[in-house]
């Protein structure tokens, strides 16, 4: 490899950025190679994708439970489309963004990732991604109550524990709704952010809140009296 440092000439100053490029180009290729290698170490040989089994072993290597929210965050980073599966493209996208090409680096990147996701500007996106990620069937638009309860725990449990607990309790007791759709899902997040808890004093059922939330508030209030 020619030593670019000893290159002379008028292009010296500008060439340093080109130098960096050139060098990072090389490094980048190496990185990519390692990422791919990592991918194939988990991927299923037949499908060429990392399947749920692969993800499980990934998780155990990362020493993270596969139901941990950080895995979901990783999926988000990858913009993974199908729950339980990672494609090569997704893998590359995610790990490249995290600048992780080994398991150790990936593990190290997780806390940073979490911080990034929890930033308010990103969280809405993550929250809505979480819902979509759970739509397993084609043309599926809603998620059953039980899964929603788990998802809520996972995604909002840290930030809005009391609201989530109450809402989950409500969802499991009520009979009007068997599934939750995206509109209701997003509504709940807004609800947690805007409405004071536990009195719901600023909640106005005459506004455009989804009906399920009107019913939820009513249910809570009737419990309180």
């Amino acid at each position, binding site marked *: 490899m020619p030593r670019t440092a000893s290159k002379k000439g008028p292009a010296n100053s500008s060439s340093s950025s080109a130098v960096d490029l050139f060098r990072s180009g090389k490094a980048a290729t190496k990185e990519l190679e390692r990422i791919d290698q990592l991918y194939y170490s988990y991927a299923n040989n037949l499908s060429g994708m990392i399947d749920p089994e692969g993800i499980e072993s990934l998780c155990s290597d990362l020493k993270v439970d596969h139901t941990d929210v950080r895995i979901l965050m990783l999926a988000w980073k990858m913009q993974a489309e199908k729950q339980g599966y990672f494609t090569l493209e997704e893998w590359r996208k995610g790990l490249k963004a995290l600048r992780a090409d080994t398991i150790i680096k990936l593990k190290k990147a997780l806390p940073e990732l979490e911080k990034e996701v929890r930033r308010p500007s990103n969280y809405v996106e993550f929250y809505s991604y979480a819902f979509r990620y759970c739509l397993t069937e084609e043309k599926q638009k809603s998620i059953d109550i039980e899964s929603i309860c788990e998802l809520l725990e996972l995604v909002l449990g840290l930030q809005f524990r009391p609201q989530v607990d109450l809402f989950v309790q409500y969802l499991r007791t009520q009979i009007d709704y068997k599934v939750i759709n995206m*509109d209701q899902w997003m509504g709940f997040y807004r609800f947690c952010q805007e409405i004071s808890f536990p009195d719901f004093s600023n909640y106005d059922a*005459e506004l*455009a809140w989804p*009906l399920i939330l*009107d019913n939820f508030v009513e249910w809570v209030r009737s419990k309180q009296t």
Partner: protein
Amino acid sequence: MKKAKSQAVACSLDSKNGIKQHHFDDATTNSSVDPFSMIEDHAETDVVDSDSARASSSGGFTANLARKKAIPPQPAKKLVIKLLKAKPTLPTNFEENTWAVLKSAISAIFLKQPDFCDLEKLYQAVNDLCLHKMGGNLYQRIEKECESHISATLQSLVGQSEDLVVFLSLVETTWQDFCDQLLMIRGIALYLDRTYVKQTTNVRSLWDMGLQLFRKHLSIASEVEHKTVFGLLKMIESERSFPDVNLSFSVICATVLGEAVDRTLLNHLLKMFTALGIYSESFEKPFLDCTSEFYAAEGVKYMQQSDVSDYLKHVEVRLHEEHDRCVLYLDASTRKPLLATAERQLLERHIAAILEKARGIFSLMNLFLPVHSAIFFRQVLTFATTGSRALSSYIRRTGQSIVTDEEKDKDMVFSLLEFKASLDAIWEDSFSKNEAFCNTIKEAFEHLINIRQNRPAELIAKFLDEKLRAGNKGTSEEELEGTLDKVLVLFRFIQGKDVFEAFYKKDLAKRLLLGKSASIDAEKSMISKLKTECGSQFTNKLEGMYWPTYPLMDVRLPHELNVYQDIFKEFYLSKYSGRRLMWQNSLGHCVLKAEFPKGKKELAVSLFQTVVLMLFNDAQKLSFQDIKDATCIEDKELRRTLQSLACGKVRVLQKNPKGREVDDNDSFMFNDVFTAPLYRIKVNAIQLKETVEENTSTTERVFQDRQYQVDAAIVRIMKTRKVLSHTLLITELFQQLKFPIKPSDLKKRIESLIDREYLERDRNNPQIYNYLA
């Protein structure tokens, strides 16, 4: 001839009155000097002299004229005006003396003594004082003088006479005298009033001054004021307690012959109060309190001891009395509060009890027929809002009990019609179609008829069905029309009109199909009435039913049937292509020719009955199960059919074992001993009452239909507006939708449409919806 010296003449400044005082310094000459001329021209005098001299020497005028000497003009003489040596002064003590004259006059007036000074002079005295800028002093002096007299007069009333009437008369006299006196004084000091008073701010006119003094001292002599008020109130009370028989209106209460009260006295004294400006404070307030107490007590007493009719008549009398009182002696401003007070105590407090006491609407009717009561009760409604409130709650309560009594559902419409009719009768006869009353009835009905959702609408449809069916013997066309109109009035009050529509259509279809309509004209008339009420949309589908070649019905097909239909279907469809044929099996009917051993008969039967009977063409005896299998008629329906054939009046089949009910193990036989007097016999299928399921399904259809309407409305609105906030959308929907609906139901539909991607929530503002094309 002596020349007249020029003399300065001091003239009185004021020459307008013709009253002049002249001061001449020098004595006048023998020639008369015109006092107004200030300057003398010597030249002129000369001329005069020479002329007059000549005139005397020679005779005749002509001599003068002819021989007028031309005198060369003299040079202008100087005129000298000399000022008076001293300003003319008033005589000493002018003011005091003048005032003394006035004072004695005023005194005399107040003391009612003759004065020896004539009015002219007095007037002049005032004039003079005013001219010399002594108006202010004069005013104050007059005021003081008046005050002392007034105060004395009023003080003299204190402790006078125990007898109230006598006392009041005294007060009256005092007041009258005072007015006269003040008037006179004012007349004398008119000039003062017109100049000084007008020119000076914060100075009252003499009249007002006098009144104010009177008022001041009346309140100082508070005993007098209070005693007067007390006396007045007592007089009024006694008048109330013993109403005068001679008064034209009280034909009814001929009680004790009255203590006729001196109304003039009351009148004058109350006018006094008004003039003094103390009427409302000193008199009216205690008067109204007194009135209130009086009528409160009377109201309670009479309510207990008399029946409603008499009570109301009595109240009417009282109100007339009070009205007259205002005309005769009370100030006009008291009329309104007075009548209000009386009504409040006599009526408002007892309205509820009055209406309760009038048991049933009919006794209320008799109650109101007398005209007096009617007029006055109209007052009740216009003045006392509790009257119409009580009436409204009465109508609601009665109506509600009619509407919500589920056991009496059959009679609901009839009862409601009766109730409304009786209220209308009262409204017309006794209230001269008073608008407020009419509105009260309307509002109350609208409320009560919608308390129970849907059922009244259904029952009204049923009621109409009954009326429009044949077999209503004895109702003339006119009567029927009248009934239809009345029912329509009720219909107007209903909010969920689409429920009515659903049931009405179904029943109309049945009537037409079964040929049970009493008169096509009546049907058409009803439809046109509905059209006027609800618009043509409502009735479009109904009108379509009249054409026998288009049997397009919405009635659903209830059951499976057998093969016979197909023959007809084939035939029909071969004749009319492109039509849809829907079988109404529950409504079909046939005429069967039956050969009984005892004679041939024709049987008019329903379709199901036909099917069953025809089985017996091939078998003498069949079990229930056999029949069921063969006909595939639904179980309950089959039992009913068999009942009608074997257990009713006309038994073309025999059931074994005998009995009213059809059990699973029964068997049926052709009745070969059947006889009947007529050739053609109708075998009544046991009336297919609308089953509960049918009912609920009809209702459900309506609700389903409503859902579509809501969805359509939402899409329509959003398509136009493109972007709309939630609250505005809800408002729009309430305006457009003709049936009652809850906001939560609207939310459901909106969310459904979001799900189906007709709309979306705006990304930035979740309160806003965007239309998705």
